């Protein structure tokens, strides 16, 4: 169990680190277009040429075939090799939002290009977009989770601790939110908000909407814990000694809620990432040219693209990996929480 948790946490930390330093791990600017390289397949890495084996992989430049029965497909030009180099200087990017850097993990000498996961319709590097888009999608998921938990636990604590009509009113609203089909609701709320905004404002709007709609379940759970811990003997004793509400909440009740909140957080993050991806997929979220996993996937709504350019499914795979890791961790946390409470 311990090792499983450790492995999961290390994997998740690695994933987030790569996304956080997307500018370093991505060789190109995610919004720069290469019109002559539209829908280029993933660049193949070679170890062997006419003169024998090489230790360092290299790539060939590929160009689109303009005539004949292979029209539209890409063909490698074997006249020149482009060795893959590490820690190369490339386009200037911002790291962590503060630090300017032009060092990239890997790249090839110009005019060669390396597209690990191919390119999209505008010839933008899918790998770079995957990393930068992941940054936005995952950040949206985490931010929305924080909003949900803050709001939800505030409501849950107030309802559970004060009880009475406050509790009843809050739990009535709670039921309303719980019983709605969330996607319809999300679309509805989104419908009333402006469609085209700057990326930053869209991001805050999305996280706000997603986060606020999901408050009901954590609120209900937190309320349950608060309700049961409010009448514990040590809490009653502390109250007898004249402890204030605030002190009781902070010292005795919040610690009990913490484990629950952690589990909920791990459970909610992948769901909210999926919510952001879904909204952006529908064209209601992050707008082009800025990448997010959702708007990258939305080109697949054309069946021809879906069939012909399989590498554009990369964001879906990334989403699966992220969700599975988070869910596995959530399952471990959940079973631990259950065994603690019984």
């Amino acid at each position, binding site marked *: 169990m311990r090792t499983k948790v450790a492995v999961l946490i290390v994997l998740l930390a690695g994933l987030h680190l790569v996304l956080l330093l997307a500018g370093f791990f991505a060789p190109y600017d995610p919004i720069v277009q290469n019109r002559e390289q539209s829908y280029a397949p993933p660049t193949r890495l070679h170890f062997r040429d006419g003169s024998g084996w090489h230790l360092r992989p290299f790539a060939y430049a590929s160009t689109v075939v303009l005539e004949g029965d292979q029209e539209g497909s890409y063909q490698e030009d074997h006249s020149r090799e482009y060795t893959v180099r590490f820690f190369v200087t490339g386009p200037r990017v911002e790291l962590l939002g503060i630090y300017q850097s032009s060092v990239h993990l890997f790249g090839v000498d110009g005019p060669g290009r390396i597209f690990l996961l191919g390119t999209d319709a505008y010839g933008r590097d899918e790998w770079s977009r995957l990393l930068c888009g992941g940054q936005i999608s995952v950040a949206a998921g985490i931010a929305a989770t924080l909003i949900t938990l803050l709001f939800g636990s505030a409501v849950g604590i107030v309802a559970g601790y004060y009880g009475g009509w406050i509790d009843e009113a809050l739990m009535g609203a709670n039921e*309303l939110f*719980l019983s709605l089909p969330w*996607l319809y609701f999300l*679309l*509805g709320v989104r419908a009333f908000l402006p469609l085209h905004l700057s990326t930053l404002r869209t991001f805050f709007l999305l996280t706000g909407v997603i986060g606020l709609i999901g408050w009901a379940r954590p609120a209900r759970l937190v309320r349950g814990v608060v309700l049961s811990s409010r009448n514990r003997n040590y809490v009653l004793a502390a109250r007898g000694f004249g402890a204030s509400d605030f002190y009781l909440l902070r010292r005795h009740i919040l610690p009990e809620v913490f484990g629950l909140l952690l589990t909920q957080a791990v459970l909610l993050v*992948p769901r909210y990432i999926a919510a952001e*991806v879904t909204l952006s997929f529908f064209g209601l979220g992050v707008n082009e040219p800025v990448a997010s996993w959702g708007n990258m*996937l939305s080109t*697949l709504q054309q*069946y021809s693209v879906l069939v012909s350019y399989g590498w554009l499914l990369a964001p879906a795979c990334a989403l699966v990996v992220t969700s599975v890791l988070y869910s596995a961790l959530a399952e471990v946390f959940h079973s631990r929480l259950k065994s603690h409470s019984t």
Partner: protein
Amino acid sequence: MSYILRKLVRAIVLLAGVSALCFLFTEMAPGSFFDEMRLNPQISPETIAGLRASYGLDQPLALRYGRWVKSALRADLGYSIAYNMPVTPLLWSRAKNTLLLTTSALVLTWLVSVPLGVWAANRRGGVLDKAVTLASSFVISVPELVIAIGLLALVVRWRILPVGGMMSADSETLSMPAKLQDVARHMALPLVVLVLCETAIIVRHVRASVLEVLGAPYIQSARGLGVSQGRLLFRHVLPIAANPAISLLGFSLAGLLSGSLLVEVVCGWPGLGPLILEATLSRDLYLVIGGIMFSALFMVGGNLIADVVLVAVDPRIRKEGVDAH
């Protein structure tokens, strides 16, 4: 009876709450359908003001809400600005397809997951149990959008099934059974996606509740009395284990409807989903509100059915109803 009555009152309160919430949001919304018209120099501000007045958009919120409720009670949910026709028939023509898809999915899900769950619980720790647990936790953790896109990619690549729409272009010329078959083939993909996602959730609950009942003392004594395993499972365990599962039916509806919206859009099924998405993108206010109300209505209706079934199978609830008096 009073149990059902209480549930009915709750359902009405819920519908009222949803509609009030919708109107509250429209008031806070900064943009409107007429924004783009306003940018057009050929349309004068007076025309737009006139249009707004004709749709009643210039009146205060409470008045508008009151009027909307009054007409909604007469099954009139307002007027779609984009389609230039009343919302209700528009929604209803699409809602039928959503209902067809979701009820088929619901029935199929339960047909699959109840036997599977009972079997897995009966052979606890066996190969099937482990496989079911693993597969269901995988499917649950993969977002529905990805499942839908993945299956769509397979279907389109291998050309197994027709994709998009509800019937083929030449459907009019087909005979009745051929027509039905045509619709079924079009429905297969969205149906499979929905059933897969829902089964993963429900099978776990069925398994858990069967396991719980299997451990109960009266089951052990029945076993001691020599009741066969088959009879034990289907006569003694399942009726008791069905209770939490039936109340789950109500809860699972919300997930099913959300999933259906997504799957409809991805697979091109002409249900409520694509309509609402379109309405959202064009800010067709009353259409969006109407769509949400329809989905809430389905939810509430499904929950009520689940409650009626629950009353029918569980004597304890009938008793509770009597006690409440």
